């Protein structure tokens, strides 16, 4: 299944009118009763915190090699052993998670929330020309096979942005923009945009299209309520829930794509680690995958376990949220 299907599999349309604030406290109390959802939320929180606090939790430098201690198993100095260059796997794992954290959050904030939500609201509510234009642009962007477009962008656009940033650094005296991976994150975030905004936009638009026909919206309109007010007071609260659901599914998809991108050497710059780079290095980009699995499984297991847990947890959470927000399917 393409990543699309994850984005495009929203919960069933929710046509009820529930007041926003009530809905949330209600939703959260319902979520607290979902044991699985809470476990997933906890797992996600732990992984994200581990990534955010990587600089505190790490025991080595992520690029620090030690050729006298390569490919060793776990011990008290290297909690998860060392890789072929004697770098600490535990440290690299934490920083790799941080890469995932930054990329997922940045891409979803900009793509799903800002672009997707705004455009979806506008397109769905105003319809007409605005809808047409947004839909057309969206179709063009999403007409590109997703992963291919991402790779194409990462391959063609990134090197030049890096060049510009470097010359900016040299002329301005500001340092560290490139080496900290900051620029990489921006570019990857941009590359992932097509993946994240259109799905959300469609979803929001679809919801709005239905809601604007709903009795209470028609009633509000008849009573002369202003458009922004209708959008914010009556429509937005009812969109939030399916949106949260999509976002939580989307987070898993974006994480997966970032990892694939890094796997092909188009992600963050070495030596900054990412989960995809760790997997790619361990499996020789796939060619020695079988051998590594049978000979040195430990090199694969740590990053794969994190990837697996993360995507698993995001999806369980998404399911739980679907149930929470959409009582009919409970």
């Amino acid at each position, binding site marked *: 299944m393409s990543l699309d299907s994850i984005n495009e599999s929203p919960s069933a349309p929710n046509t009820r009118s529930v007041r926003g604030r009530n809905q949330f406290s209600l939703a959260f109390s319902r979520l607290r009763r979902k044991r699985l959802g809470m476990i997933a939320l906890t797992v996600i929180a732990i992984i994200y915190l581990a990534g955010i606090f990587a600089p505190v939790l790490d025991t080595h430098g992520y*690029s*620090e*090699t030690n*050729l*006298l201690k*390569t490919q060793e198993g776990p011990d008290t100095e290297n909690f998860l052993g060392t890789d*072929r*260059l*004697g770098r600490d796997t535990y440290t690299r794992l934490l920083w790799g998670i941080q890469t995932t954290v930054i990329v997922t959050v940045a891409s979803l904030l900009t793509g799903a929330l800002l672009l997707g939500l705004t455009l979806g609201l506008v397109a769905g509510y105003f319809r007409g020309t605005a809808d047409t234009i947004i839909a057309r642009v969206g179709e063009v962007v999403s007409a590109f096979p997703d992963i291919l477009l991402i790779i194409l962008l*990462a*391959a*063609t656009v*990134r*090197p030049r942005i*890096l060049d510009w940033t*470097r010359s900016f650094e040299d002329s301005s005296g500001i340092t560290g923009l*490139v*080496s900290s991976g900051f620029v990489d994150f921006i570019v990857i975030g941009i590359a992932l945009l097509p993946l994240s905004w259109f799905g959300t936009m469609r979803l929001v638009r679809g919801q709005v299209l239905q809601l604007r026909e709903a009795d209470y919206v028609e009633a509000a309109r008849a009573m002369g309520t202003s458009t922004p007010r209708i959008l914010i007071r009556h429509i937005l609260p009812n969109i939030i829930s399916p949106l949260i659901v999509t976002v939580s599914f989307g987070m898993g998809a974006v994480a997966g794509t970032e990892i694939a991108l890094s796997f*092909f*050497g*188009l992600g963050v*710059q*070495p*030596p900054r680690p990412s989960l995809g*780079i760790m997997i*790619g*290095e361990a499996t*020789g*980009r*796939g*060619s*020695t*995958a*079988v*051998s*590594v699995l049978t*000979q*040195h499984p430990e090199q694969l297991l740590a990053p794969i376990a994190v990837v697996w847990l993360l995507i698993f947890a995001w999806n369980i959470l998404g399911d739980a949220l679907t149930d929470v927000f959409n009582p009919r399917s409970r």
Partner: protein
Amino acid sequence: MRKSLFLWAVALVSVAAVACGGSSSSSEPTAQSTATAVPTRASAPDIAPELRDGTPTGDTEGSPRAGDRFTQVYSDPPTLDPHLVVDGTSFGIVVELFSGLVSLDENLRIVPELAESWDVLESGTVYEFKLRPDITFSNGDPVTAQDFKWSMERAGRPETASAVAETYLGDIVGMEALINGEAGDVSGIQVIDERTLRITIDAPKAYFLAKLTYPTAYVLNRENVESGGRSWTDSPVGTGAFTLAEYRVGQRIRLARNDNYWSRPAYLDEVFFNLSGGVSMAMYENDEIDITRVGLADLDRVNDPTEPLNQDLVETPAQFGVQYIGFNVDQPPFDDVKFRQALNLAVDKELISSQVFADLLEPAYGILPPEFPGYNPELDGLRYDLDRAKQLLSESKYADESSRPRIIVTVPGSGGSPGLDVEVIADMWSRDLGVNVEIQQVEWATYLQDLNRKRLQAWGGVAWQADYPDPQDFIDILFYSDTQGNRGNYSNATVDSLVEQARTEQDISKRVELYQEAEEIIVNEAAWLPLWFDTDRKALLKQRVQDYRFTQIAIPKFKDVWVTDAR
């Protein structure tokens, strides 16, 4: 001789693949595929020559048996047109289908192929070849001197658009004009009679004959090429030991025996190249292919004598290539020789080789690889010496850390690993010398473009591999001031004059001395950081396969291979 892109490619392959354990390029799906497209990467079967230690391959000896087939993983050759070949992948198949006047034997000696003999006249500027009697193409047409003249001219014609005609045939009088579209034929290639061809070159160049072993000089069948149009290579007529039985892009290539071969016909009924990739080690274990390289991940296992696979283990001789990190000596801080020397001295290659690459790579302190003509075992180079490195750094223009420009080492990144060695070296430089190093990984096409424009300050992840066995192919092409191959703008008047002398020097030992002298200057001035020479690698070969020769360069190898009954 694999000219190539693929050399660069090798970059990826070697670094990546070696890293992942010397998987064979040919059977290295990752490298190729992810790494891509650059056709180049799939280096030819890297399977280089030399008998495998002279030992017969199995216990089942006896006289060669005709029949059966040999299977290996390979990648799609970008072309089967000998005149267009620039990469090892294409090369490996083209040599089985076509041939030329001369070829190389396993010891890199130039031996007669379709020419039975030749005379060098006019103090080295005229070569007169005598063709073998009664040689034919695979369709039965006779091969004449006229065919050779037509073929070489075809290679040079602008509409053929060969990337290498100039490199390999450009020494022939009149060829430049043809390539530039200023002439209709080449005066330097004369047909004396049916079996006699005379080639005149512009100066006595000792390495010219070696260049004729490259496919650019192979003979083609005019009728076949002209009637086949753009896709004539779908049913090529050649003079090699095999003919093309089937080619399905992305799926398979099957070669069948050429019964009109001028010498003893091949034993194998069929050579099968699996083009769709896969995990070759697992395929080998499952008896799906007859040969595979052994990667680092499997090294321990196959070295274990109790493991059945251990019985199939063979050594493949090193490739003639050198991996390096190049410096652009025009760009600070690389414009200071002391700084470059410091960087060289600060890298402990012995340690990296043993710890990271399981000794599959040999530290390089010079440019020319071991066993290559002109290799200098005496060359000391800049060996690891951290104290001296620090000393030199403090004497350099860039002693002051705050004003020292940062170093950006660019490596190709599409599908290749960032280069484990580059990561370690960057860490050594920054930790031991306090140099600010960044690694920039860009995708292959961008990398090549920046490299060709000489825009990279320092670059790694590449190897230079020999195209023909002559030191000119390294020293002249890579370090002469005014040459495209010199990507780092290195320039040294003494080196230039040594190289110029060597070009026309007829005495072999004198030439070698000139090149060695130049090499020493280049190495001591730290134009590069030479990293690794290939060493013998490990491969697995089914025991039923007999007389398979691993060669350092692509030469026809399947004509002597046969397999025993035992499956």
